[in-house]
């Protein structure tokens, strides 16, 4: 899922410091799972913002709404009837949702309440780590199910580099060396000889480098 975390409170306060009435919109999907922008987080943030304003002798009226998702038209439409009542919207969706909301409601300023980071997993309660960078040409079949593009700091396709130490990456002792993981997995699969196969130069044109991406399924278009 997409993993994000709440922006620092004073940054969020800064977005709406001159407002009196705002809409705070959460999302029930990824950001709920990573405890950043779901219904509970909306509640906590609303309370914190109100108190921050009260402390300055000001008042901030906040309406709290949590949509199923903010990346689909139908859910964003649900606020169409009310949005004009507000001076601004803070969206606690990931960057995708914030943008989609902003695209729909052109005359209301929309601010992001989160910093969106990566596509990842819940390794354990409270710990999320990156797994995929959306390169558009998945090579997981060749690397025993471990991605060197998202998990190697240098995205080396024929690793490890000379800095791998004790199974950890040279940039951070707590970061697993992706290539150590790949080698260990190849061993468990009895495929260590595959290690010597050279992975060729990658076509990065399907990645961010190639420009903003689009996928179309003609059979699904109305």
């Amino acid at each position, binding site marked *: 899922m997409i993993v994000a975390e709440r922006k620092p409170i004073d940054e969020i306060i800064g977005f709406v410091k001159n407002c009196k009435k705002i809409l705070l919109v959460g999302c029930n999907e990824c950001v709920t799972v990573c405890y950043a922008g779901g219904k509970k987080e909306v509640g906590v943030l609303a309370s914190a913002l109100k108190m921050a304003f009260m402390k300055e002798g000001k008042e901030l009226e906040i309406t709290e709404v949590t949509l199923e998702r903010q990346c689909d038209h139908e859910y964003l439409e649900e606020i169409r009837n009310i949005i004009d009542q507000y001076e601004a919207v803070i969206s606690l969706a990931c960057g995708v949702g914030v943008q989609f909301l902003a695209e729909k409601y052109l005359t209301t300023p929309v601010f992001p309440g989160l910093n969106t980071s990566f596509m990842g997993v819940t390794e354990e309660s409270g710990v999320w780590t990156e797994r995929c960078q959306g390169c558009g040409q998945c090579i997981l079949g060749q690397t025993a199910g471990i991605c060197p593009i998202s998990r190697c*700091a*240098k*995205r*080396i*396709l*024929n*690793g*490890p*580099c*000379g*800095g*791998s*130490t*004790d*199974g950890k990456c*040279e*940039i951070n002792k707590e970061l697993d*060396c992706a290539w*150590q993981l790949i*080698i260990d997995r190849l061993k468990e699969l009895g495929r*260590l000889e595959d*290690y*010597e196969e*050279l992975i*060729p*130069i*990658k076509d*990065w044109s399907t990645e961010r480098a190639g420009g903003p991406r689009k996928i179309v399924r003609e059979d699904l278009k109305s």
Partner: protein
Amino acid sequence: MNTKTPSRLEKILAAGHLAVTSECGPPRGSNGDAITKKAEMIKDYVDAINITDNQTSVTRLCSLASVIHLKLMGLDPVLQMVTRDRNRIALQSDILGAASFDIYNILCLSGDHQSFGDNPQGQNVFDLDSMQLIQTVRYMRDEGKFLGGGDDIDRPPQMFVGAAANPFADPFEIRVPRLAKKIAAGVEFIQTQCIYNLEKFELWMKMARDRGLHEKVYILAGVTPFKSAGMAKYMKKRVPGMDVPDEVVERMSGVPKEKQPEEGINICVESIQRLKEVEGVRGFHIMAIEWEEKVPEIVERSGLYPRPKIE
């Protein structure tokens, strides 16, 4: 063995001599003298001089310009090229730039992560990795074509292709397969990470010999003299992929401070003497970082002076 390039280093190795290379780090500024002066000090004692490429991600005068300075002095430099900072267009372009000045040696590296250097907030590129860069140089040289289009290159580069190897990085079990992989990618010479754990290196060499790899690539053993016990401790603890045995640190610490540099050189020379006896070691890469003035002494005391004359 036949040579494929006009590289002096290749010729010396092909003739069966032990080669000696060293390296210079460019300055943090635009003063070309800083490189030429260092090169002056060591030029008669080595067969080729490497110029590092923004080593440890610290911005310096670029390797390409530096090797040109050396070439203009009449020397045969080794262009070190990392893939951290340049995409395949710039890499091929810089290779041609070097080739236009008849630079005949290249060392293909991935490069230290930028978080180590002076601009940790910068982007990194890693369009290619070091193995793919090796393949690219060989392709440009031997097929005479550009990547991508497959267009012909007008006056292809004639570069002797090298790479680094680190027998001391983890995991040890794939360090020799990794060497094999680089050879399959087309590497022609290897410079290893500096060696302090001679036993481990000898084991790595044995494993390489068992696969016949020592006959497919020229392996140059890397050495670096310690200037002080502090340096030995620092390298042991703080430098990734470095193996400094306790005995070596103790030997450095066991000597009074003013005698430590001398002891560091002693250890270095003794290592070279021992490594000369290892089958498959075809030369030495002496990395005397910020201590280039000691290279002549090390080369002489190791019995590697004068350097063979080759035409």
